[in-house]
């Protein structure tokens, strides 16, 4: 970095800090809309588009970026406390976050999630800023063949989740994949398995499936208990020490935050890939290389850190192809592009020469947002976690209303409310009869993406299946994938042998 870049960065930093009066209210707004299922950052920016366009370039940019970051973080809050992941990016968060809340550690879980999100987001922002030209190249190597393997990393989670009863786990996972196949095919747009329902042509909408399987079904289960928190985990009066304990737990695992957020960053820079892929892949990687894989899904801090650090890594990653190549990586980035173009900024290779302050400004806004967010949200966790102590007779109907409404919001089809209810019933049956809803969900979320990349690869090779092994990077990923499947088994066997000797 030469001195002129450094001076631009310093200048932009102070300018961005000067926008605190936009950043702070936007963060609060972002946390709220992020927490409402279905109300993504992208939706909110669209709704507030007239306001955004009326702001000057720099203010509009700061507004959109801090909203984006805050919404990402906000989505984790209901995912942890009441098992409602509001966006696909937060779908892996409740796997370990919600069990923690049930154990009365909601406050710690929130603190862990905030620390992981902020450090992950801040760190990847800095890395992205420093290595942007190199990172932008990732998209040039990660084509459909390579993405198939990346998707398989995530999908292989089905098998690990299903470990206790493989047959039932696979039934759940493959049922999810089958449900995920509903909709028109990627190439010729032939409708499949849609029951003739128009609203399913575009595939099963994610939010209704997500909230139905996780939250609606859970609402029917929790009414057996007085409160969400189990009896032994009955929380004490609100206190600071739980928050600090959570911060401490997260900070001790800083290495974990670093590498899972980098997974998010790398997946985020690939145009078209998104937070849902990143968080599942990060969770799977985290579990594969863990000393204690059996703890995942029971409220293990690392199982919460991985998806939260990763999905915030994606946030900074999506800016890279937007700024360097002019290609928006996701929905929010696409809307940013529209707004920026309205102000006459053209993205692409020339941006950093013509208007370096815009390019650096976006990263700086992200970094400053994360810092301010950390300071404002952490103290709130002690109050938020009280949700878990509301008696379930009140909480369960609220969860149902809230989630059915959330199912409606993204597309505003009444059908989606029915769908959320349908998935709720399916999820309830699955829970009561020992099938994993998480396995179904992974299939529903990642299945369509896997099929898309698979069909592109096959179409490109005229149907030759060997195309899957046709690229060097792809083959390296295949080996890594095989390793990440085999290694945990080997490690597990070794650990078991060690444990068995003294036990028997």
């Amino acid at each position, binding site marked *: 970095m030469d001195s002129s870049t450094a001076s631009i960065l310093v200048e932009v930093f102070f300018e961005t800090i000067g926008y605190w009066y936009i950043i702070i209210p936007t963060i609060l707004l972002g946390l709220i809309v992020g927490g409402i299922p279905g109300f993504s950052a992208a939706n909110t920016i669209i709704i507030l588009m007239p306001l955004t366009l*009326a702001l000057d370039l720099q203010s509009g940019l700061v507004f959109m970026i801090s909203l984006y970051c805050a919404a990402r973080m906000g989505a984790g809050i209901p995912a942890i406390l009441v098992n409602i992941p509001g966006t696909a990016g937060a779908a892996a968060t409740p796997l370990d976050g919600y069990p923690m809340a049930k154990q009365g550690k909601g406050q710690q879980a929130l603190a862990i999630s905030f620390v992981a999100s902020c450090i992950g987001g801040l760190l990847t922002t800095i890395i992205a800023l420093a290595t942007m030209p190199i990172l932008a190249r990732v*998209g040039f190597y990660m*084509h459909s063949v390579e993405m198939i393997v990346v998707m398989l990393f995530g999908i292989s989670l089905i098998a690990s989740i299903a470990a206790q009863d493989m047959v039932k786990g696979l039934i759940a996972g493959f049922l999810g994949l089958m449900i995920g196949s509903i909709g*028109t095919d*990627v190439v010729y*747009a032939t409708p499949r398995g849609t029951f003739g329902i128009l609203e399913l*042509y*575009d595939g099963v909408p994610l939010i209704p499936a997500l909230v139905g399987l996780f939250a609606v079904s859970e609402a029917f289960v929790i009414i057996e208990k007085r409160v969400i928190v189990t009896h032994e985990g009955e929380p004490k009066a609100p206190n600071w020490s739980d928050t600090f304990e959570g911060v401490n737990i997260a900070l001790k695992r800083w290495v974990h935050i670093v590498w899972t957020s980098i997974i998010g960053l790398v997946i985020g820079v690939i145009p078209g890939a998104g937070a849902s892929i990143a968080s599942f892949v990060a969770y799977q990687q985290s579990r594969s290389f863990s000393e204690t894989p059996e703890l995942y899904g029971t409220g293990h801090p690392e199982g919460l850190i991985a998806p939260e650090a990763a999905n915030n890594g994606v946030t900074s990653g999506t800016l890279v192809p937007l700024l360097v190549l002019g*290609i928006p990586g996701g929905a929010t980035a696409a809307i940013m592009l529209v707004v920026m173009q309205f102000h006459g900024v053209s993205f692409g290779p020339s941006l950093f020469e013509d208007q370096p302050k815009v390019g650096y400004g976006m990263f700086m806004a992200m970094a400053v947002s994360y810092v301010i967010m950390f300071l404002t949200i952490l103290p709130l966790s002690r109050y938020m976690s009280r949700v878990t102590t509301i008696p379930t007779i009140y909480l369960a109907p609220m969860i149902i209303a809230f989630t059915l409404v959330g199912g409606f919001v993204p597309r505003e089809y009444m059908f989606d409310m029915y769908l959320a209810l349908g998935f709720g019933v399916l999820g309830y049956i699955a829970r009561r009869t020992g099938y994993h809803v998480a396995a179904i969900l992974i299939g529903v979320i990642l299945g369509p993406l896997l099929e898309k990349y698979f069909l592109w690869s096959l179409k490109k090779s005229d149907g030759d299946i060997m195309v899957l092994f046709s690229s060097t990077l792809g083959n390296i990923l295949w080996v890594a994938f095989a390793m990440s499947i085999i290694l945990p088994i080997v490690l597990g066997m070794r650990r078991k042998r060690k444990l068995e000797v003294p036990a028997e």
Partner: protein
Amino acid sequence: MSMKQTINRRTLLGTGAAAAALTLATPGLVRANTFPDRNFSVYIPTAEGGGADRNFRAFSSVWKTRLGVDFEPGFYPGASGRVGYEIYMGKAEPDCYNLLFGNVGPEVLNWALQPPTFGIDDYIYFGQVDKDPCCLFVGAESPLQTMDDIFAASKTRKLNVGTSRMAHPASIGLLALGDKLGVDFNLIPLQGGKGTVAGAVTGEVDFSVLTSGSVIAAGDSVKTLLVFGNNIAGEALDNAPSINDAYGMDLPEMLSTRAFGIHQKAIDDFPDRFEVLTRTFKESHEDPALMEAYIATKGQPEYLVYAGVEELAVEKQAMLDLGAEYKALLTGA
């Protein structure tokens, strides 16, 4: 730029509150017994953030000043735009308050390949915002930098060509080119303009075909080699020649035409309302502010061309005919 205004900290709260109040109380702008007395809902059958989004915002920003009410877009992507049309025709009240903002090119092509549940003549397009020819382009770093490179490479292997979707005029343009050159191109539908540009830039495909408006918006990261129509944009499309000039063909222009549409029933039931719509639409088209807004959203000035009910009906029919001709290739049947 007329709409742009600078806001500092002191005015932010005031403006924010005013904007909020305005948004919340918009129905309050009631003018008794006049049309329109409430906001329009516009059904857009593609995803937000794309070319349709940009054009819609530019045009409605001018149109709304003439009508005194706002346009609220709803994006209904899915099944190549089919979902948006089905919902518009099936669920939107035919009262002239619900409009469609579609693309006469690729979207009408759908009906030729697989008929919709409603009658194709039950809706019409009444106002063209802009039209742009499709084109063929490569990524800036692609090893293929000229049409000769592409021709040479296509002799050694089947080239993969990104397109937004199979049923798209750009795909037809490419198939026609393949027929003429005697080479087989492999079309890969990359689901939308963003993916199609990204595919060519990152090397997922050898090159791509797309509506030229989106290609121009992609800037330096791509290079246009051939236009499936007349290159009225010149420099912006790297002075690429037209397919007919370059290869001695007489292919009709492969256009992407963004236009507002409406239920035929709404026209029949409320002819006076429809008259207001068509009149103010035309006036807006002549307003210099439109050109300003259009350019501000990266529109290509040459593409901003008005067309009315008759011209659009002709184009709709032309698309249906082309679709019937290429049906087998585009549906994999």
